[in-house]
């Protein structure tokens, strides 16, 4: 008995040390900035850091902006509007050309000063589009083309001026420049590292933190980049630790090992905030949870059945309970930060079981099972939401057996009838092209997977992509919403997602309206 007791006490002494690491000052240079550990569910889904391979908003978006930045930034302290980043200003030369002036004196992590050459390289064949001497994996150019379908070239005008030249007119070029996948890397560092493979987990950029170590599926450690153009970073070392269990993340926060815990379940917030010294921040992000249709399923050929399914769902209850009122049912597949392109007054089909029953009756729905494929909590509260939705559908007479799938390939598998499935859509920049066109247009995943198509939608996608007249583009977008959400439904918008981060109360950090955990001086009130 006494032995085990001593053992425990010895353990207590050793364990106590790291808990005070935050207050300690071990650096000889008198660096009194804190070291911070952030427990995340996943660091990188793809196992690498390169933003052209790793594109998961709920994983890499949390840290990517700390390492690499875009020319045009998004205001993480405001409403994600475009603000100067590595470029101080930009102007349209014509419908296909944008010219940007680079911020002078920006230091890269390897000590170089950022020039137009780095920018041109970042959008060049060796880094992005392939061909020539490059030996990029073939998927990288394909992803780059998704981001930049018609980019012709990036011209170096002078040391601090670049021009983006598109092959077709495109009003969304500035948006694309500010989006994920358009981060600027160091030309010299990339070339010295070698090929894509060698660079895929060694990002060198201009961000407030530089990469120290990446252990796939375990941890990512970043150090302050003291010459950061935006000021001296407030944290000495940032460590992202992969802690898959939600309860373990909170436990570690309570015991003082972590200072931040990501992906907090919304309905757990009230219980977590009971603990002394812990608060939960967060809110809506630019991502909508949706359910998509395969309109070739015999019961779903009739659009009235699909519309009925939308009317049957009590989205409000889902938001009020599973999300504890901290998310919302959005106005369709659009976000307010679209600005001029936002269609005011548009709503999702309202919750109306009577209307749903009537529509089903009119369509002659005969109880044919419509399989509902989901994954086990890939999305926040996914299983619970699916169980609620299924119950809603059951109440209006729909028969939608849940099929839990283990991975995407199984969700999209054409063998066995496909009915409806879970999905989510993000807005990567402030124009509907980045969401409804990219996801549901002719090149979007839904049409590519053969779930749905609509000729008018596809014509309108062209108008949105290459049109330059604001009025006509907005009209086209409004019509798209009408088609995709009412006339020939392709998806049901359930709710806008929200993200919550629990943290030690004493740390003066603000949660941006995105997945990004901004530890730049801008995100820290010291």
């Amino acid at each position, binding site marked *: 008995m006494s032995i085990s007791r001593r053992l425990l006490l010895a353990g207590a002494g050793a364990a106590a040390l790291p808990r005070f690491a935050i207050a300690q000052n071990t650096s000889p240079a008198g660096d009194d900035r804190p070291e911070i550990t952030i427990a995340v569910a996943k660091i990188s889904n793809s196992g690498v850091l390169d933003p052209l391979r790793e594109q998961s908003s709920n994983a890499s978006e949390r840290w990517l902006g700390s390492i690499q930045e875009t020319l045009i930034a998004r205001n993480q302290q405001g409403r994600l509007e475009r603000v100067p980043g590595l470029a101080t200003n930009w102007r349209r030369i014509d419908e296909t050309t944008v010219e940007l002036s680079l911020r002078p004196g920006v230091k890269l992590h390897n000590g170089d000063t950022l020039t137009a050459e780095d920018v041109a390289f970042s959008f060049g064949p060796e880094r992005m589009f392939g061909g020539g001497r490059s030996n990029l994996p073939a998927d990288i150019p394909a992803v780059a083309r998704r981001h930049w379908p018609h980019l012709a070239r990036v011209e170096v005008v002078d040391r601090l001026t670049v021009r983006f030249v598109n092959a077709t007119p495109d009003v969304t070029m500035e948006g694309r420049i500010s989006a994920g996948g358009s981060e600027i890397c160091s030309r010299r560092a990339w070339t010295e590292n070698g090929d894509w493979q060698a660079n895929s987990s060694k990002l060198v950029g201009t961000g407030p933190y530089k990469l120290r170590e990446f252990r796939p599926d375990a941890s990512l450690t970043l150090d302050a980049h003291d010459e950061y153009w935006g000021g001296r970073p407030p944290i000495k070392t940032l460590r992202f630790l992969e802690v898959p269990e939600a*309860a373990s993340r909170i436990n570690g926060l309570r015991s003082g090992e972590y200072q931040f815990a990501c992906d907090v379940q919304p*309905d*757990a917030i009230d219980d977590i905030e009971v603990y002394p010294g812990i608060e939960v921040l967060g809110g809506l992000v630019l991502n909508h949870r949706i359910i998509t249709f395969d309109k070739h399923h015999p019961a779903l050929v009739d659009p009235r059945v699909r519309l009925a399914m939308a009317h049957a769902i009590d989205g409000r209850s889902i938001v009020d*309970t599973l999300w504890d009122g901290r998310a919302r049912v959005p106005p369709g597949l659009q976000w307010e930060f679209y600005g001029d392109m936002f269609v005011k007054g548009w709503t999702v089909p309202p919750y109306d079981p009577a209307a749903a029953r009537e529509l089903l009756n009119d369509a002659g729905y005969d109880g044919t099972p419509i399989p509902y494929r989901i994954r086990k909590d890939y999305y926040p509260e996914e299983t619970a939401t699916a*169980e*609620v939705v*299924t119950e809603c559908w059951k109440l209006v007479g729909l028969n939608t057996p849940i099929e*839990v799938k283990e991975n995407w390939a*199984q969700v999209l598998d054409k063998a066995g009838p496909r009915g409806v499935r879970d999905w989510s859509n993000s807005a990567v920049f402030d124009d509907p092209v980045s969401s409804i066109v990219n996801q549901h247009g002719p090149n979007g995943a839904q049409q590519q997977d053969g779930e749905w198509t609509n000729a008018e939608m596809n014509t309108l996608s062209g108008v949105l992509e290459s049109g330059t007249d604001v009025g006509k583009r907005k009209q086209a977008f409004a019509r798209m919403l009408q088609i995709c959400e009412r006339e020939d439904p392709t998806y049901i918008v359930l709710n806008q997602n929200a993200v919550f981060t629990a943290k030690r109360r004493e740390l003066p950090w603000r949660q941006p309206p995105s997945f990004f955990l901004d530890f730049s001086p801008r995100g820290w009130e010291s």
Partner: protein
Amino acid sequence: MSGVVLPAAGVAPPKRVHRMPPGVMAAVLWIGAMLAVAVLAEAIRPYSITALDLRARLTPPIGMGGTLRHFLGTDELGRDVLSRLIVSIRMSLLIAFGATAIATVLGTTLGFLAAHFRGWVEQVVLMLIDFQASMPFLILALAVLAFFGNSLPLFIGLMGLYGWERHARIARGLAIAANAQGYAAAVRQLGARPIRIYLGHVLPNIASTLIVSATLSFPEVVLLESGLSFLGLGVQPPMTSLGNIVGYGREYLTRAAWILLAPSAVIVLTTLAVSMVGDWLRDRLDPTLT
């Protein structure tokens, strides 16, 4: 040490009054009650297991501030915990008994075959044992979920694959040992058919260890199922099981422990009961403990 055992030791022990100790009696009653719940599940559950009431989610059970309406409280979707518990007991007992039976019969048979035929039959059985032991169950579960979907019989069959190799190894080892002992040889010399020797003489002699192995399998299957639920590969909604509830209930451990409490208690008590009855049966079957 003497390996000679009188042949008579292989047959049933002499008649003797075996009074069931009160503990075992309680265990039998508990198992009986669980079986009754399982059989009557559809009739005695107060609510449907999918009927949800989002406004009444996470209602505490009686004694923690709850009402009689939901005796054991409600879960994160406002579903009645008691109803789900009842249906889960049925599901888990079905899986656990089914899988344990499959594993024990399969393992013992293969073990006996190996012990009897030796030679290449034994090599094949040993290879299968090594294969089963080397293949992480995660991958087997994945295969079944991917190729066969949420079919309950297949799931039970899959769980039956778990642990058969342990029974097989034990059965083989003990059967070889038993064959070497005098009684089996004696019976064989009397001209008994192999199947009679194994079922009538070897099996009773080694039954005790096998029973313990089987009573260990039972909770293991329940636990394995909850482990698979933990990884997202267990019983899938709308079906429910004890392991499944414990699996998702862990997220509510500090907020709504009642979701996890009742199914955990049922798992522990049922296992304890199965073990006690197993031990008792083992003593009765063990010819050396007369």
